[in-house]
């Protein structure tokens, strides 16, 4: 995408729903309806700070049937590069923001016989929209929601009211943990499992499902990586004939954009592969942080996802 396609929205309500999570309601700046979307979609929020621009992906948690508002939940990241702090500290009711059209990289499988949804912490957000799609449908589903402690259980009252028995809560503080083996070893054929949350949770679910013999096509996960910080490095863009400095707390993609070069992207979280860029020359090593390239691709070092990946190198030339 590029910014020509963004929508102008206004923040209409903000609520601190847990010590770390704020809930934002966004309405179209012109008062009209927002574009329709499907559960599991995310938007990119463009934040124009004084010194730099952030573009962060957030899952839509509101009902796909309510197009008067979009709702997102933003967790304050301790090691934030600025995006979540911007949302928490600088955005108020009435603030104007730009967002990109919704994109769904975490859709429900439409021919599944059953859905098992597993959320950890802020990973609950895409499921809040999906259960709106699932609610009237005939396909059974269950929702497992794991949080640190009761005070961290965002959107719990809304979920309880809507889901009743289908919702199972797990509190770390009370020693409760999801029994992954029990859950995944005893599901009917045609069940799909979806997991969103911290990397450890995703890894456990994926590994357990595979060990239980689930086909890969029935295991779905989404995790937006924030671009990790790293050492500063320089990159030469072969087509633009431009050298770009990448500081420790800015991603390669952000640095390239700041230099005025457009790179096509969708998720900015290492998931979709859209910003994949060819590496032409490298003296050093790539630091791959994405979930898109295979291990073999990563080892080859011919391509990089500039949204989350970096380099430790003396010299790097990209095909841009």
């Amino acid at each position, binding site marked *: 995408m590029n910014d020509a396609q963004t929508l102008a929205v206004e923040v209409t309500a903000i609520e601190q729903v847990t010590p770390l999570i704020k809930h934002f309601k966004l309405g179209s700046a012109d008062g009209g309806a927002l*574009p329709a*979307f*499907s559960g599991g979609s995310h938007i990119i929020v463009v934040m124009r700070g004084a010194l730099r621009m952030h573009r962060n992906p957030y899952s839509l948690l509101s009902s796909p049937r309510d197009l008067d508002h979009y709702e997102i939940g933003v967790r304050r990241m301790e090691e934030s590069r600025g995006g979540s702090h911007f949302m928490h500290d600088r955005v108020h009711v009435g603030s104007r923001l730009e967002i990109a059209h919704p994109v769904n990289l975490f859709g429900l499988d*439409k021919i599944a016989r059953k859905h098992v949804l597993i959320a950890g912490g802020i990973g609950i957000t895409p499921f809040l929209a999906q259960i709106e799609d699932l609610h009237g449908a005939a396909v059974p589903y269950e929702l497992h929601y794991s949080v640190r402690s009761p005070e961290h259980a965002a959107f719990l009252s809304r979920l309880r009211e809507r889901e009743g028995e289908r919702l199972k809560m797990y509190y770390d503080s009370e020693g409760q943990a999801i029994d992954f083996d029990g859950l995944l070893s005893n599901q009917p054929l045609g069940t799909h499992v979806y997991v969103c949350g911290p990397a450890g949770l995703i890894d456990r679910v994926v590994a357990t499902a595979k060990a239980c013999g689930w086909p890969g*096509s029935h295991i779905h996960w989404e995790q937006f990586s924030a671009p990790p910080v790293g050492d500063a490095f320089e990159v030469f863009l072969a087509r633009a004939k431009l050298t770009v400095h990448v500081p420790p707390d800015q991603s390669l993609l952000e640095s390239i954009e700041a230099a005025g070069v457009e790179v096509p992207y969708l998720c900015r979280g290492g998931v979709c592969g859209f910003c994949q860029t060819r590496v032409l020359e490298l003296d050093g090593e790539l630091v791959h942080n994405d979930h898109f390239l295979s291990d073999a691709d990563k080892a080859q070092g011919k391509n990089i996802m500039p949204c989350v990946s970096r380099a430790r190198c003396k010299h790097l030339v990209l095909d841009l």
Partner: protein
Amino acid sequence: MKAIFKPHETFRDDFSFCNSGQAIRRFPLPFPEDEYMYSVNIEPHVSGPKGSVVEFAFDVDEHYVAECRERELVLAAEPLRFQALPHMLSAQWDCLELIMESLARDYPAHFSLAKLGNRWHWINRPLGLDQQFIFGDVDTLPRQPLDYIGRQAQGDFVVMDQRENDLWTEAGVVTTQADWSLDFDMGMTFKEWHGPVPLAHEMQVFDRALKYLLNLRLGQPVRRLNWTMTIHPRLDTSPENYPKWGPDRTTVTAQNAGDLVHLRVELQGLWRLPRSNAIVFGIRCYLISMRELATVPKWARRVHRVLKNLHPALVDYKGLTRYRDAVVEWLAPYDDGTPTTPGTAPE
């Protein structure tokens, strides 16, 4: 285009279809150069020049009423030309919304759409339809949503569900197809559907196209042109009816090719659908006879050269084997060897 409809023209029996001078000038010639080979020739489906076939999302031209009538005839005889698997219902509604909103916005003289929440009121003046219904409630429409709106649009529509990193052909209304069958292709993946296409698989055209389409964005549709040739202005060249139209190929001579042989161009558009996350693939067919085409000197020279040098595998795949030489011979007097200007504009 200010469409003055020609409601009585036919695409069967007496084949009274023809193009007005204006329709010829806006014909979407698919050959920007004097030779043709596949490419992933996808571009954003943004509004093109005024009066062109890509001025609007869905082009409504002088053949609108006649084409809708032809579609009714095909669907009445062969109801399986419309099919939709049960999980594609939300995608059907997405399609109905996309087409109704586009037509009402782009052709307010012909179509209008009023909404009060989920209560919609649709008026199609050229076809004399006035329908009030509840968006999302199938029982309030006379037919399933895609069947209903598909009968009011020119061109075919195939709806693909997206899952397992692939696109699955799982709904459609298809009556103006170039020798392929929705009934046969239902449930296929993207590459299975395109299995018969020669050369392109080896060129990895479908790997790249699929990857591109999986990331197709809401609000950013894309388009491309494809082409083949058809004897008579026959829209419905289906495999099911091959005995009706296949033998026409044996009747072409260098004397009658100008009137019998038509260039058949598909304007293909692809839209991401919002509620279903499916993709609708619109395939709009334009027909032009060689005699009509030859009224544009540049096009006659170019099509003559393209056909003369076309790769043998493509000649075969496009079904031109029996009559290509006759068409080339018919066009030859129009090609004096003068270079053609780049691009597809008439001159």
